[in-house]
């Protein structure tokens, strides 16, 4: 019970912390919209831009969630909170926020770009996968870099390269966002492939990023044994 309570209290406090960053939360909601609505509804690139906006917003929330607590987290560990409970609380909170963002944003895409889509449920799946991969991406960056500036530059690199490299190249397929983008391509009828490859890639990427995020996080908050 204590473990569950610790996890929930961390999630609650992380939520309070993020919700009080009003400018950040406003951008969190507006960023995907800005990316998406800047592209005419008749162009299928709008799907890519909108999904990248989701990735940006979600990954940034995860990254700032970690970096904003970098001084407090080791103290929480010293006070007795096992590393996995603090991490889990944060993961749950950011994931809920991310899926909430998709719930708000996906209907707009499905409505505005409906004429471009051959499979609307698959498009919604692609957006959800984009959020699912971007949560551990943001957490991993936050746990690996020392400061916000470095983290933002790394995020720009990963999301920017992911959206500009041709999808069929080997480089693109090594990037974490390839899977959700492939699913969106399938939804828009832009490729002959199936969703299975994209879904598998997305889930494996999410798990690998989650592992990397936890490993880095654990190193940061680890208390040396006496």
């Amino acid at each position, binding site marked *: 019970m*204590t473990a569950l*309570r*610790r996890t929930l*209290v*961390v999630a609650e*406090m992380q939520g*309070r*912390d993020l919700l*009080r*960053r009003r400018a950040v939360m406003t951008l969190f909601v507006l960023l995907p919209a800005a990316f998406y609505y800047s592209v005419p509804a008749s162009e299928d690139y709008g799907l890519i831009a909108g999904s990248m906006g989701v990735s940006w917003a979600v990954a940034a929330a995860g990254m700032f969630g970690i970096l*904003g*607590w970098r*001084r*407090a987290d*080791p*103290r*929480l*560990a*010293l*006070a*007795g*909170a096992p590393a996995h409970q*603090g991490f889990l609380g944060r993961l749950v909170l950011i994931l809920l926020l991310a899926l909430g963002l998709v719930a708000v944003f996906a209907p707009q895409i499905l409505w505005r770009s409906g004429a471009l889509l051959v499979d609307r449920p698959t498009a919604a799946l692609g957006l959800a996968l984009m959020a699912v991969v971007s949560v551990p991406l943001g957490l991993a960056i936050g746990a690996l870099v020392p400061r916000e500036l470095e983290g933002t530059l790394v995020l720009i690199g990963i999301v920017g390269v992911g959206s500009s490299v041709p999808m069929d190249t080997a480089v693109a397929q090594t990037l974490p966002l390839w899977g959700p983008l492939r699913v969106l391509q399938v939804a828009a009828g832009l490729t002959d492939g199936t969703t299975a490859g994209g879904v598998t890639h997305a889930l494996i990427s999410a798990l690998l990023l989650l592992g990397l995020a936890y490993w880095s996080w654990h190193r940061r908050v680890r*208390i*040396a*044994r*006496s």
Partner: protein
Amino acid sequence: MGGPDGPPYGRLMTNEPALEAVGLVKSYGRHRVLDDAAFRVDRGEAVAIIGENGAGKTTLLRICAGLLSTDAGTVRRYGRVGYCPQEPGVVDLLTAEQHVRLFGAAAGLPRTEARTTGFALLDALGFPTGDRALAKDLSGGTRQKLNLALALLADPTLLLLDEPYQGFDLGSYVDFWAHVDTWRDQGRAVVVVTHLLTELDRVDRVVEVRDGVAGDPVAVTT
């Protein structure tokens, strides 16, 4: 403070160690900060760590807390540790009450107990407990009181305090040293990193960190 014939203040003096550190070595790149440093504190004892800027005081304290790894050497801590860093390790956008709940949950305290204990500690340190301001909006000294209260929340045996009075007004500063006496009398081991040499008569021993070595304890005379 205390003469050679008996324990100072008639306090609870034990030879029960709260912290034992032996052979500590720590380098940052090519710069060796600690070189075979050793350090011991018993329960019911207050120790001041002094040294020049960059001598390695904070490094020594962080290693003792377990927050920093060593290149060599061992640290043994007996009981729970409370650590108060020089720069408040708090979350800017949470209130004091939320910090108390968060750190209380981390320590496994029930919510009510965390609040009761936390507010009592804050009150004792002169923190305006009715203040619902976010940590980022607190003055430096008030923020540091929150920082210090969080270190005490889990009833630690060993208190490691890194210049914990930063930003305190004079009254709070005087009260702080009175609290050190109280904590020591309660049987805690209290380690204070300080630059204020005028207060060294308030502790039982002074350890100087110089050239990477935590020097032999210097007896404090009154």
